[in-house]
């Protein structure tokens, strides 16, 4: 019995497992950063859609209607790669001399000095930005609708009292918009959480990748078969993690809703 406990303790705290536990931070970071960026892009997109300046309005509409349809997996693969090579091309135009270009044997980048090697932090940032862009299009739609739900009379009153358009936007319009936007934004947030399971596509050693590695049949020449295919058990842990995150998110959204809904939602809801 004690041997069993000792075995499991040492098994679950071996180096690879510790790395796995640590990799949860990537998922959490990508979700939080992606979520924050999505709201930011959503606010920008929605105000662009409401702008008086036509090109801005067109841009906002295109963003929210087109990007929403792009599969997140595809964008995850496309954006970091395109961004990386774009930066390399830009650097190359500044750095590469003809001699350097001649010395380069690979097809890309133009010269070795322009090579940009991305590590996990860079990929994590790019992943967050990808999430922000894709789900910001959803957020744009949600926030655009929410902005239109704020009673017009209150905006008119703000103008009648001499507020500038910016003051009306920030003090009244956006402040009240949250109540109408939060249910939709909580959906977007859930989608973002789910999409964090795609991090391994960007060569980030995330929780899914580690679960896969640790669960696979483990065979050591000296010991023989350590364990058979245990992947489902590791995936089960991930399920539990995602369910916990979902539950926690619900609580947080309820708390935010109570806060921003003060005075707007009836007492029964608040």
């Amino acid at each position: 019995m004690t041997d069993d406990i000792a075995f499991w303790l040492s098994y679950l705290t071996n180096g690879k497992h510790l790395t796995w536990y640590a990799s949860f931070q990537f998922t959490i970071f990508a979700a939080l950063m992606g979520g924050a960026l999505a709201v930011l892009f959503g606010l920008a997109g929605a105000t662009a859609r409401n702008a008086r300046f036509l090109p801005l309005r067109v841009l906002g509409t295109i963003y929210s209607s087109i990007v929403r349809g792009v599969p997140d997996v595809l964008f995850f693969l496309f954006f970091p790669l395109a961004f990386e090579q774009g930066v390399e091309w830009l650097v190359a135009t500044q750095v590469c001399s003809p001699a350097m270009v001649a010395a380069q044997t690979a097809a890309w980048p133009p010269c070795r000095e322009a090579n940009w090697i991305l590590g996990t932090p860079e990929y994590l940032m790019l992943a967050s930005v990808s999430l922000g862009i894709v789900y910001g299009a959803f957020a744009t739609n949600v926030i655009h609708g929410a902005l239109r739900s704020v009673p017009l009379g209150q905006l008119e009153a703000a103008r009648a009292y001499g507020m500038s358009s910016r003051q009306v936007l920030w003090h009244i319009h956006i402040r009240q918009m949250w109540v109408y936007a939060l249910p939709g934004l909580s959906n977007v947030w859930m989608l973002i959480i789910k999409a964090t399971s795609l991090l391994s596509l960007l060569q980030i050693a995330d929780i899914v990748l580690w679960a896969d590695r640790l669960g696979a049949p483990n065979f050591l020449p000296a010991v023989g078969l350590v364990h058979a295919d245990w992947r489902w058990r590791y995936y089960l842990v991930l399920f539990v993690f995602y369910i916990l995150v979902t539950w926690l998110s619900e609580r947080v959204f309820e708390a935010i809703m109570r806060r921003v809904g003060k005075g707007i939602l009836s007492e029964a809801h608040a």
Partner: protein
Amino acid sequence: MPETGSTVSMHELNTAPAATMPVVELRDLHKSFGALEVLKGISLSVGEGQVVSLIGSSGSGKSTLLRCINMLEVPDQGDVLIDGEAIKLRGSAQARQIADESQIRRIRSELGMVFQSFNLWAHMTVLQNVMEAPLIVQGRQRAEVEAEARAMLDKVGIGSKTDAYPSQLSGGQQQRAAIARALCINPRVMLFDEPTSALDPELEVEVLRVIKVLADEGRSMVLVTHDMEFARSVSDRVVFLHQGLIEEEGTPDEVFGSTKSARLRQFLNAANHEEQRHT
């Protein structure tokens, strides 16, 4: 010399308020919504301390006229002057718009508008509603504004509701809070757009009482109303609008007592019937 100048104007103010520079002056206002011409050339002036009531049937243009004073509606033609200063507009006809944002913000911050549907900001408490414009538009000191806001809320009789949200108040209380909000900007003129039309008769009374107090204090006011009885008791001058034009104007006694216009007589009869049905 400046001293005699000021004595003269004080003298004028006391004896004939209308003879001094009007607080609000409207010159030949025209306004159309699409093909519908709502104002067809209206000129009107409101002197210091005067209470002017705009009456007329629905669609006569009285609310539109009031909303032109602070440019919530921009007239297609004509000028609006506040304290002799013309509000700058550019463009023409229905494309006409406000030309100088900082001017209109300054002027609006001196016009206290009260709306039919209150339009209190739902996410703020009553006190915050009253303090908002003085703080962020007029840039005044918080302590001073808060003291004044509390005094105004006491004055309109809801001093105990400062921390309530608008949704927790009755319509009459909300409208009184809205009046306190208008008062707290120290307005040159109060603009009332059918302030009691959204209220039940028993709540109407408490709002009318507040407006009456303000009128008696000598505040300049423009009031759009359906309540003929009230217009009569509170106004220095009553203006009857019909299909976008001023059909008749004068003192309450002139307008309600010795009506010249057949249309006005018809309107007053109808209004009278309406009131009797309510009581």
